[in-house]
């Protein structure tokens, strides 16, 4: 019969309408924009409205979500900071749109290079958020951020991030990516232990050699 296809289609629309109310009812009494509720409503069990009322509701981003990179520093108990970056320049080399600019620092007295950057710039208008810098950094010094609300009225100054703007403590990274942070710290600890063992072995060897030398003479 002519028109049955349209009627069936309208049935689908009505089902969507009813589903959205049923879904709303099942979440009655809960705050509309909590992460827990959004996780269920946006997951495979969600049957209701899928759109998110953005500035009020924000979808929780997954751990691996990548936006503009930032630099990590370790904060010590006395308040001093050490950059993890050694200004090796791999991030600047691997960056596809070439948006990273690093200046190495050198000792003012001897003029020899020190493994930390004096200046570090990222042009976030050029950055394409590919995540290569974080992926290939050998020191876990540069990571991708989760902060995606970076709009500003001025792009000449505000969109070129310098080192002050990029620097963030390791604790911040641990809070946004707990799993990755844990596995990386474990790998680092293992590496350190290996290094220490090697060092100890070398020292032991040296001591034995010295003893041998002493006994010979």
């Amino acid at each position, binding site marked *: 019969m002519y028109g049955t296809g349209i009627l069936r289609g309208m049935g*689908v629309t009505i089902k969507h309408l009813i589903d959205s109310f049923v879904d709303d009812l099942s979440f009655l009494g809960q705050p509309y924009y909590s992460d827990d509720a959004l996780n269920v409503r946006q997951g495979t069990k969600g049957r209701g409205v899928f759109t998110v009322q953005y500035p009020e509701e924000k979808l929780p981003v997954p751990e691996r979500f990548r936006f503009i990179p930032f630099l990590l520093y370790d904060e010590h108990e006395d308040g001093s900071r050490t950059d993890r970056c050694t200004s090796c320049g791999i991030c600047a080399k*691997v960056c596809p749109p070439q948006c990273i600019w690093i200046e190495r620092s050198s000792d003012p007295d001897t003029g020899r290079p020190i493994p930390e950057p004096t200046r570090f710039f990222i042009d976030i208008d050029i950055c394409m958020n590919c995540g290569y810098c974080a992926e290939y950094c050998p020191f876990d010094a540069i990571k991708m951020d989760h902060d995606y609300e970076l709009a500003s009225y001025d792009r000449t100054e505000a969109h070129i991030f310098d080192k002050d703007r990029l620097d963030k403590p390791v604790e911040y990274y641990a809070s946004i990516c707990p799993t990755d942070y844990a596995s990386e710290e474990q790998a680092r600890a293992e590496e350190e232990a290996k290094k220490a063992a090697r060092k100890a072995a070398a020292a032991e060897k040296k001591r034995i050699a010295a003893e041998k030398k002493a006994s010979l003479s």
Partner: protein
Amino acid sequence: MIPLIGQIWLIVLCCLDSNPEENRFGKNVSYPDEFDIDNWAPEDDTSLYAGLNKSGSNGKKLKTDSLVVNMGPQHPSTHGVFRMVVALDGETITDLQPVMGYLHRNHEKIGERNTFLQNMPYTDRLDYLSSMSNNLGYSLAVEKLMGVEVPERAEYLRVLMAELTRVSNHMWAIGFLLNDLGAFQTPALYAIRARELILDIFEATAGSRMMCNYMRFGGVARDLPDTLRDENTVDFIGDLVNERLPAAIDELDRFLTGNEIVRSRCIGVGVLPADKAIAYSTAGPLLRASGVPYDLRRAEPYSIYDRLDFEVCTRSNGDVYDRYVVRIDEMRESVKICQQVMREIPEEGEIFTGKPQYNVRVPKGESYGRVENPKGELGYYVVSKGKTNPYRYHVRAPSFINLTVLGEMCKGHKVADAVVILGSIDIVLGEVDR
């Protein structure tokens, strides 16, 4: 997109700079001797307009004048910056010429400047609705040159991602086709509801919803995450491919396939006979809707497709409606593949061969890697001279080649049908213009 275009334009300016000292990539642009870049002006449209067939069919009784209309480049129905020069007799199309190039971003030249690995995120931006498949094609091309084996689990992950991409892409294609038919937004939003869950998987696994940058030469970048939206990821994907996606496809089928308005607008419109489809070397759903059972996953199986069980969907009429039905069928097959992948994927295992390197060594030689992208055959031609960057890099973009047949299909139809026919080809301008 805007910062991306700006950024690429900067690079273009940088490359075109005639002073090699000012160009940070060195002197990497050369022109033929007789070509003068400073005095070059692009051709105007006079010859294009003159070449159109303006002979009307009903000029016998009424004195009518044929009319040339430019649809685009800023027309809402063209899916981007694309221009159709249409010669009209009344409301009937006598000739149609597609004009491309408004979104040209020097993709291939940038690819020759980039190192092999650096080019991977740029391939995301070709067909930005199916970036996972784009990655797959490019890594296949370079892996052929490098001769690396991909671990078993990585192969399964690749196929899973590529097939989920196909579903999400066809969802968009159908949603937009209905937009072009005049059913604004409701079908489109119902179609992309399930796509949202697929993008959640991409975001949690690769880090980005659309610009995934997930594949590497010799595997994939990351394994599946442990949890996704507070649920075990494997359960999430299992729920999705076993229940949610089949239900969504069935619903779309129920919603649209039998709809009388859709049928009367689509059946018999934009017919493309099989011989013409082959002559224009079209690919993908466009070719299969014309009755040619050609699918690269069967014709030249890559990755693990030779082990998987799926059908190549074809229809025989080659009109807009058949293309729509082929897309629905293909989504079903893709979901079937995803179900098999989730059943057979090794629980544990390597996802990458060798040590991750930021500057891969690619031996001398040339290779052509091709995949069955949602839109057709996507091919990457890479020539390596043993340096860090490709000597020549070319993309065979399915949208671009499918678009050449648009004029043929539109002749004799009305203007409103041209919009629908364009929607049924399913183009993405990022890939057409590169």
